[in-house]
């Protein structure tokens, strides 16, 4: 047994708690030593404590500096703020890392997709500065800053270098939004000068969408402002099999929160039928971040094997297994190979 890691578990709401329990079971069975500290977040919290993100949760995350999070719910149009965005803002988790890689057993029409998306996570139209500036005009301020743009570019290049990547492109709409997206692109170009070993370039966001759908294999790493990143990372997830298998990490200089990017599916809460794979692959990503590569590889291999057999998979991939049965099958597969 190696180092013990202390990880904050944020089960979230809806199907989040049952998903997170299944994921915990798998991770604990992988041989890694993790002490889990559970904290609350989300809508249930708002009803109980009057806030989406209680101080106790903030303090625990601040102490452990790492968390695994289940899904939370955000109402559309009205109501409370997003718990996810609040978390990102409070801990300044400026880099949203969203890998999109083909899972071998999920049949897709492409031979190769292996894209690393780096989405700026704190600025852009997500600065929460909106006004009804007259009774018939609403306005949202798009905030792009030089230091905010510079650090996400720097983060992307560092990560790409550490992971042996070759090509990084900046996605923007600087032909129209010349100041905001222009600043983002300028910062990217400035940072790129420090990494001459990379092939770098830029692509206009609408063209990028078309190219992703036509020929996703041409892309390696993408750096995106918040709004385009939000949209394109889901597009990339769709290319490789949907949000049900899409991992995500929100990272700052001193804190990292790993999470599934899908919703909390409240209508399925308690039914134990949803696929926990997205939180599980986020957990695998977390283990790699913790340098627990062997455990991460074990889980991933077992998960692929279970998916390949299709005997114990959930309804969304054509099976009838419950969340727990799918997780148990992964555990059994790991133990059989141990």
């Amino acid at each position: 047994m190696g180092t013990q890691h202390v990880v904050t578990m944020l089960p979230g709401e809806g199907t989040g708690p049952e998903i997170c329990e299944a994921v915990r079971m798998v991770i604990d069975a992988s041989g890694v030593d993790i002490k889990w500290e559970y904290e609350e977040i989300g809508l249930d919290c708002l009803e109980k404590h009057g806030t989406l993100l209680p101080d106790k949760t903030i303090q625990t995350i601040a102490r452990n500096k790492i968390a695994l999070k289940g899904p939370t719910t955000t109402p559309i149009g009205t109501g409370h703020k997003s718990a996810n965005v609040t978390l990102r803002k409070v801990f300044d988790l400026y880099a949203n890392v969203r890998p999109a890689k083909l899972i071998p057993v999920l049949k897709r029409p492409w031979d190769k997709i292996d894209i690393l998306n780096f989405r700026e996570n704190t600025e852009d139209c997500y600065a929460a500065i909106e006004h009804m500036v007259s009774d018939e005009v609403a306005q949202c301020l798009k905030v792009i800053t030089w230091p905010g743009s510079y650090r996400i570019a720097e983060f992307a290049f560092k990560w790409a270098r550490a992971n042996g990547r070759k090509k990084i492109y900046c996605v923007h709409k600087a032909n129209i939004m010349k100041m905001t997206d222009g600043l983002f692109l300028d910062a990217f170009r400035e940072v790129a000068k420090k990494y001459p070993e990379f092939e770098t370039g830029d692509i206009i966001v609408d063209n990028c969408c078309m190219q992703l759908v036509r020929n996703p294999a041409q892309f390696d790493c993408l750096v995106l402002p918040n709004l385009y990143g939000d949209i394109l990372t889901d597009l990339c997830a769709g290319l490789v099999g949907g949000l049900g298998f899409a991992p995500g990490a929100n990272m700052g200089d001193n804190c990292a929160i790993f999470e599934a990017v899908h919703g909390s599916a409240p209508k399925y809460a308690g039914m134990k039928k949803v696929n926990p794979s997205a939180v599980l692959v986020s957990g695998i990503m977390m283990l790699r971040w913790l340098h627990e590569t062997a455990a991460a590889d074990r889980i991933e291999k077992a998960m692929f094997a279970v998916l390949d057999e299709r005997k114990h998979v959930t309804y969304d991939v054509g099976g009838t297994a419950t969340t727990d049965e799918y997780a148990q099958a992964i555990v059994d597969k790991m133990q059989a190979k141990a």
Partner: protein
Amino acid sequence: MPTLTEIAKATKKKREIKLVGIDMYLITEKGIPKFDEIGPFKCEFISNRGTKVWPGFVSPDLLMVNWYRCRFMATKDVQDADVNTFLDALTKKGWWWSAAQKLWTYDGEAGFSKAY
């Protein structure tokens, strides 16, 4: 036959508009601003890049730029002339501001977002 533009304009509902505050956008290199009440306006929160930096917890890691949104809410019924007086007072105190946005309610509903 009315045009679509005319039809769209005709759907507009009349709403009662009331001035309730001001969002001030300040530029300063001296860190998070502090304010006493200025006339009938009291500072409710300050945000930087959309993240609330006063009052409450601020991550020591938080990236802040030299541009702050300071939300001042009216402590009594106010008119546009009160905003002019407020802006004069703020300028005289040495604050350099880039923009001011009046905050209105529409039929009692806030026409402005909260900070994270």
